[in-house]
């Protein structure tokens, strides 16, 4: 299994010299099995260059197939889709997966991004065959030789975590999520810090506990966990209601789940390359210094990780 990062940034793309090394594109990760099954997680601006790369092979002649798993539909996870070239070549087959919504058909959520007055090419004009698959919370399914599991995360509105197993290896993608200490999921808008854990009802505490254990289960024994670590401890204190975690939250989950490698991901737009380096150093020290069992990397555009059989 090969995991390649095409976009590692959260919130919005940040071009410029400060982000040259880690990259300024928003979330997009490609996971391919040894047999060639291709899953793409999220369609931030990183998916544009992935699309160009794919058009150098079978997608150019309309013979490509890929499965796009969407964690949630906040802009930084879908804004690259209208610029994904394989959509515009007849014959290509693309499958888009995201959690079902009660109020709006999934296809219409994506199509509205390409509507006037926002974009000149209507979604009806995509030439590839595009199928939408709506997922329920906790869905498990197979994509060719890859097994996919899901669980819901603590993020405003809706966000889904994925784990993908193939070739004797497993990767989990946990973005976007806050730690499991207050209720953000299902909320449309939080104007300030929500109720803290001690103030929550017993039902809410139970829900959060169940959510946290489901995330640990999803990561259990994973070779690689890609985790939303947008915030430093200080930033989290200021913005607990925006739905993002700290490296310490990711380390806790990964240590409980016996994970081999943690990739810090969804870097804040303000975070310079040097600051990501510092965050990585801090996370490694926190995870147990040189004796730690958990490897930690900070995801950057172009990072390739080979897991299991390749």
């Amino acid at each position, binding site marked *: 299994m090969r995991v390649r990062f095409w976009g590692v*940034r959260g*919130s*919005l*793309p*940040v*071009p*410029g*010299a400060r*982000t*040259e090394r880690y*990259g*300024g*594109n928003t979330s997009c990760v490609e996971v391919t099995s040894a047999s060639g099954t291709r899953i793409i997680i999220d369609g931030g*601006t990183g998916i*544009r260059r992935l699309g160009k790369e794919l058009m150098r092979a079978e997608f150019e002649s309309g013979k490509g197939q890929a499965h796009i798993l969407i964690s949630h*539909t*906040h*802009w930084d996870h*879908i*804004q*690259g889709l*209208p*610029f994904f070239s394989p959509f515009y070549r007849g014959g290509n087959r693309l499958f888009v997966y995201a959690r079902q*919504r009660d109020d*709006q058909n999934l296809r219409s*959520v994506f199509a*509205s991004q390409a509507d*006037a*007055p*926002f*974009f*000149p090419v209507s979604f009806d004009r995509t030439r590839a065959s595009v199928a939408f698959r709506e997922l329920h919370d906790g869905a498990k399914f197979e994509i060719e030789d890859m097994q996919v599991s899901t669980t819901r995360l603590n993020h*405003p*509105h809706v966000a889904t975590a994925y784990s993908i197993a193939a070739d004797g290896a497993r990767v989990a993608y946990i973005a976007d999520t806050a730690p499991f200490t207050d209720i953000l999921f299902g909320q*449309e*808008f*939080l*104007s300030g810090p929500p109720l803290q854990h001690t103030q929550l009802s017993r039902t809410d505490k139970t829900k959060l506990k169940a959510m946290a254990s489901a995330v640990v289960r999803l990561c259990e024994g994973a070779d690689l966990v890609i985790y939303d670590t947008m915030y430093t401890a200080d930033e989290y204190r200021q913005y607990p209601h*925006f*739905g993002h975690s700290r490296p310490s939250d990711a380390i806790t989950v990964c240590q409980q789940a016996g994970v081999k490698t943690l990739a810090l991901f969804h870097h804040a*737009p303000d975070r310079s390359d040097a600051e990501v380096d510092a965050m990585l150093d801090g996370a490694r020290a926190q995870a147990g210094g040189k004796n730690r069992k958990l490897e930690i990397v900070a995801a950057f*555009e172009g990072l390739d990780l080979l897991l299991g059989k390749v």
Partner: protein
Amino acid sequence: MEVTFWGVRGSIPSPGPATVRYGGNTSCVSVRLADGEIIMIDCGTGARGFGISLLAGAFGKGKGSATVLLSHAHWDHIQGFPFFGPFYVPGNRFTVVGGSQSAELLERVLERQMAAQFFPVQSYRNMGAHIEMRAIPEDREVRVGAAKITAHPNPHGPTQVMAFRIEADGKTLVYASDVGYESGGPPEDTLAIYRGADLLIHDSTFTPEDRAERMSRGLSSLDDAVDAAARAQAKRLALFHYDQDYSDHDVDELVVRGRRLLDARGAEEVEILGAAEGLTLTL
């Protein structure tokens, strides 16, 4: 009049080592007038950087006011709106002026970007600052302090985009992005809007060769920009809204070719430059 470029790219932000010099952020230009008025033209991802710079002053204390002119609502011209810091400081006041038929339509367009499935703030009304939406009036004139702003509809593929002429402090700035002229170039009424500009910021998304392959997109090539500047006798032409795949080297080439094209048609007096993030020009 002080003009600063915060985003100069078209279509989609293009981060990476190849775009560090000219910048990869989408369209945003700020204008500061002698009387202190501030105008932001378009709200691509460049608006984030502009917002950060404003927060250091009155806008950080909720005592700022500014006008936002939107040429049109394609993503690359509005996607910085949710990330413009001064919008989140109560007390700041903004007037957003766009080419929609009514203020309600403009509001509806901008609200769709803020909706809960796409962004956790749900509505611009939750941002904190006072934001008033205004359609461009029928006479297409907007006054901001001592500045006279004239809007002019240009063709942009099957739709329209507003060009803006801003006259203040005895100087004239023209912003004409995302324009795809009919064959024959800008018509007389468009040239009248551009005429004699001290600075003409003009769409030059493509080289002439690349433009030939993408006629349907309603965008300009370098030679369209040169033609408009020369015929309108602009004093200075800033190339703008570069294709997302153009590297810094490609944009350098555009500027060199543009100089040659101007000279070849006897327009040696027109200055030319490539707009770059962080560049400030004082008119």
